[in-house]
């Protein structure tokens, strides 16, 4: 008999049971009368013979039950009714829970997006990244996964047999963008140059048209392009006839042959919106080019091959290459890992996320403790109800189960509301993840996906069990008689329960202290970072990027001319104090140039410490130091006279001077620079010797840098480039000048895109790579935790005081003064508070070391102050929380209290 028919059958059978039993007893009565009994005696005899009617009905009903399922349903209904009857408790409990669960879901969704998402390709665990590995860089977490050079890639492709296909793409680390123009406004889009079989290896099919043909990655056949679906939507309006249309990429014409799906966007490593075939010049395939590591290489494992086999095969190939090419490949091995592993390792987010997860975990524990206390208090009031129910025949286990069902209900309600909180929290986070392209990619993908939903349900259930166990356990252990006899007059009431509650509150205090100390460390780090070594004045400066595209700007002369015109336009404006161009903004990672100092020995070949051979390379216009207010401590700045026709000059920064000219004045010395560190091609003239004419102050490459990096500056007129950043010091609010800045560029050439408009303040903040968010988040969680703990203490003390009202009344009647009662309550609570704070302090002592171990370059000069100060904060909050109930207790009227039941 299946569930449904049983259900309906049961209804029918039970409906008539009453009548049936009455009929039965009636007949028995008649029989008794027939035997000669008096009518009423006959009735009683029949009843006695029948037995307990209630029991019979229950037993009969049990025949039809579905067992535990029905029991659960009944418990849930009962629990729901109980919760509705005490709305105050329910609201507080659900709010507390939802806050705790909500923050956990929020952080977990970040974890899910960054660490757990599988790449959106078929069979993602068989798709491998093949990387170069520099043996000198160490193993383990420090292991390098570097891009691959074109000649290496060709060799691997030719020799490796473990893969059904190997393809390469220009590495996303290059952050390359191209200008799409023709038609509407020019825009810069991230692009990738990929092998013809790239999409086959990845397993992605086009949504329109086709992907590349095998012959299309040869020069001459390569003027075809593939669009990503969102680019197609945005720029071409999803036009189905886009195939065959031409687009201008960096001024060159390409034909669109296909559209690729949007799913690429799910993994942050694939920012490209446009793909063109990857071609190599003969130089790029020559032996010297083996050190130009610029490609990401993907391989799809053949079905029968294991990862280990593939790895060892590639190892062998790499060793062979290293043996024949020691100059470029000595100490270079390979690493083979899945695309997902690569994405996780290179995202550098693991430690930060670990700290955040720990923080929200603490918040949840504190919420659980609050809930457990709430439940314990509530159950204390229901002691009589439970005792009666147990006396009437409910097993103690049944009562405990029913309580657990109530807790599960609370958990689910809290989880549901928590999801709403999480959605709001994600909305906030998405706005905050904006410090660079990669973080923006991540922010686009943050969502409440399936992982997060499952996580929330699991956490809700686990939490409910956690805070429900203690009270339920208590209920099931108590002797019902004691419950019935208990009254609030007794002063020793519920000792055991009170101890548990005190323990919980002490635990909450400990946790919130640990969280406060942790947050304090992060906040301190961030603040110190931001104020550490300004080196320049970032206020009132607007920046923008212009990357020249088009055949007109192929020569350095034309590029220089363009930017000079823009600068002249800018200087005409009355709102501009001074304007300059530079190829790299301060507080961003600059390109590097290899240098050689005249009179000093060149560093030994193969030296891996790039700090000794590479300097940050800045090509700047004369007013650069004026705009940025970087001090030039010795010598002079550049002037308009330093141009292509005058003597080559260079300015170095103090770090450079300290490192390489320790006890001399660098002015007057000469050095030679090779931008991009490209090896000199045989037969070309070496770069000229430049005279050092000035020494400038140091500026960091990123917020929080603790070491010093050498920088060199050359006049941009002597070394023009096509892609430069404008920096403009303004007399007005920088953001208000954005439109005028664009206009200044467009009045020189309408077709050049002006991108990345940011104030310099914003640039500095962005270079913190999210340190500000980390500090904000940890601070927010610590605050939430402290408030929750404070509320918890307040609730507990208020409740305890309420239980002792009678006792207080007696004391006051016997002559105690208000002040004494106040102290009595406060003293009693402070013991518990001190215990919690002490425990928390012990644990917090380990924190500074943990943070130092987990993050590079942490500023932690005041950790002792934090360790000393935070406990005081917690004690203060606890005192305030205790004070109000204590004051209420001290104001109790003795007579009213003595009458209080």
């Amino acid at each position, binding site marked *: 008999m299946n569930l449904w028919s049983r259900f309906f059958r049961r209804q029918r059978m039970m409906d*008539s049971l009453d009548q049936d039993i009455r*009929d039965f007893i009636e007949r*028995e009565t008649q*029989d008794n009368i027939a035997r000669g009994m008096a009518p009423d005696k006959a009735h009683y005899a029949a009843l006695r*013979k*029948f037995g307990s*009617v209630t029991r019979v009905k229950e037993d009969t009903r049990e*025949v*039809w039950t579905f067992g535990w399922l029905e029991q659960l349903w009944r418990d849930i209904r009962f629990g729901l009714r109980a919760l509705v009857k005490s709305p105050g408790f329910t609201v507080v409990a659900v709010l507390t829970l939802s806050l705790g669960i909500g923050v956990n879901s929020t952080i977990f969704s970040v974890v899910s997006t960054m660490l757990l998402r599988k790449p959106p390709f078929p069979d993602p665990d068989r798709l491998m990244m093949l990387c170069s590995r520099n043996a000198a860089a160490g193993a383990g977490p420090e292991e390098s996964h570097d891009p691959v050079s074109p000649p290496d890639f060709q060799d691997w492709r030719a020799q490796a047999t473990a893969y059904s296909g190997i393809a390469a793409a220009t590495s996303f680390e290059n952050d390359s963008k191209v200008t799409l123009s023709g038609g509407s406004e020019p825009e810069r889009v991230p692009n990738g140059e990929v092998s013809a079989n790239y999409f086959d290896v990845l397993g992605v099919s086009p949504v329109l048209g086709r992907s590349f043909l095998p012959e299309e990655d040869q020069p001459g056949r390569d003027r075809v392009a593939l669009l990503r679906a969102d680019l197609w939507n945005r720029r071409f309006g999803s036009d189905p006839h886009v195939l065959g249309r031409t687009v201008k990429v960096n001024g060159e014409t390409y034909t669109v042959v296909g559209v690729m799906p949007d799913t690429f966007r799910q993994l942050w490593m694939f920012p490209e919106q446009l793909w063109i075939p990857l071609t190599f010049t003969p130089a790029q395939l020559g032996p010297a080019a083996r050190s130009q590591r610029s490609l990401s290489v993907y391989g799809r494992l053949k079905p029968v091959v294991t990862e280990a086999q593939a790895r060892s095969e590639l190892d062998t190939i790499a060793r062979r290459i290293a043996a024949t090419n020691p100059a470029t490949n000595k100490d270079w091995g390979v690493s083979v890992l899945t695309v997902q592993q690569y994405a996780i390792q290179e995202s550098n987010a693991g430690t930060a996320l670990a700290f955040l997860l720990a923080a929200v975990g603490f918040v949840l524990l504190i919420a659980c403790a609050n809930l457990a206390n709430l439940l314990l208090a509530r159950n204390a009031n229901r002691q009589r109800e439970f005792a009666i129910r147990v006396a009437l025949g409910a097993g103690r286990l049944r009562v405990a189960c029913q309580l657990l069902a109530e807790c599960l209900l609370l958990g689910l309600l809290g989880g549901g509301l928590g999801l709403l909180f999480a959605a709001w929290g994600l909305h906030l986070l998405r706005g905050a993840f904006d410090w660079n392209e990669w973080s923006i990619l991540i922010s686009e993908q943050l969502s409440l996906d399936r992982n997060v939903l499952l996580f929330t349900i699991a956490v809700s259930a686990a939490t409910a069990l956690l805070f429900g166990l203690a009270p339920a356990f208590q209920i099931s252990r108590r002797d019902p008689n004691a419950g019935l006899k208990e009254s609030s007059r007794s002063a020793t009431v519920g000792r055991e329960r009170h101890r548990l509650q005190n323990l919980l509150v002490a635990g909450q205090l400990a946790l919130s202290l640990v969280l406060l100390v942790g947050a304090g460390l992060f906040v301190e780090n961030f603040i110190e970072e931001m104020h550490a070594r300004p080196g320049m004045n970032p206020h009132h400066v607007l920046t923008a990027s212009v990357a020249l595209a088009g055949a007109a700007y192929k020569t350095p002369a034309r590029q220089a001319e363009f930017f000079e015109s823009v600068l002249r336009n800018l200087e005409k404006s009355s709102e501009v104090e001074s304007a300059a161009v530079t190829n790299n903004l301060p507080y961003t990672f600059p390109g590097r140039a290899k240098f050689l100092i005249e009179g000093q020995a060149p560093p030994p070949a193969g030296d891996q410490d790039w700090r000794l051979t590479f300097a940050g390379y800045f090509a700047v216009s004369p007013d650069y130091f004026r705009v940025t207010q970087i001090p030039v401590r010795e010598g002079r700045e550049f002037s308009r006279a330093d141009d292509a026709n005058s003597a080559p000059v260079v300015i170095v920064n103090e770090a450079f001077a300290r490192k390489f000219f320790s006890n001399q004045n660098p002015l007057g010395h000469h050095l030679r620079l090779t931008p991009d560190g490209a090896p000199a091609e045989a037969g070309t003239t070496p770069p000229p010797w430049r005279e050092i004419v000035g020494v400038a102050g140091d500026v960091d490459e990123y917020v929080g840098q603790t070491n010093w990096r050498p920088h060199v500056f050359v006049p941009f007129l002597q070394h023009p480039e096509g892609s430069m950043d404008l920096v403009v010091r303004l007399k007005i609010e920088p953001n208000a000048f954005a439109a005028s800045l664009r206009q200044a560029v467009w009045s020189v050439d309408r077709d050049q895109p002006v991108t990345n408009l940011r104030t310099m303040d914003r640039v500095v903040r962005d270079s913190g790579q999210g340190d500000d968010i980390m500090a904000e988040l940890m601070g927010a969680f610590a605050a939430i935790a402290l408030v929750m703990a404070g509320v918890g203490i307040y609730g507990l003390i208020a409740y305890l005081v309420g239980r002792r009202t009678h006792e207080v009344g007696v004391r006051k009647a016997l002559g105690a003064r208000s002040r004494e009662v106040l102290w009595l309550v406060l003293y009693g609570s402070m013991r518990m508070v001190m215990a919690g704070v002490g425990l928390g302090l012990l644990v917090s002592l380990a924190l500074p070391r943990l943070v130092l171990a987990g993050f590079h370059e942490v500023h932690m000069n005041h950790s002792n102050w934090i360790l000393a100060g935070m406990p005081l904060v917690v004690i203060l909050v606890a005192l305030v929380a205790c004070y109000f109930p204590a004051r209420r207790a001290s104001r109790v009227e003795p007579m009213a209290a003595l009458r209080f039941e």
Partner: protein
Amino acid sequence: MSTQKERERIELLQGTLDLLILRTLLLGPAHGHAIAKAIEMRSEDVLQVEQGSLYPALHRLIKRGWISVQEGTSENNRRAKFYRLTARGRRQLTVETGKWEKLAGAIARILLPAEQEGES
């Protein structure tokens, strides 16, 4: 409040009570009270079971599909529910009777030799 011991006792009787009901209904459909009286009479008042426990047993048998229930009129023209054996119930009765006889036989074999020993 049913304690553990009472529960055990009831369980022991559940199986046998079911068997007795089935056997009683072999002679024809009957209503609840008639079944109770029949069991009492046939056992010559040895089996004194709480009459109320008849109802859970009847419902159990209905759930298992061994008996069915119908509205009908009793001998003194009153409405009553009549229970009757189903085909499955008939088969089950044979099986259960066989099991019971085996059990009773086994117990008798164990008990009887002891008696003889006691006598001699």
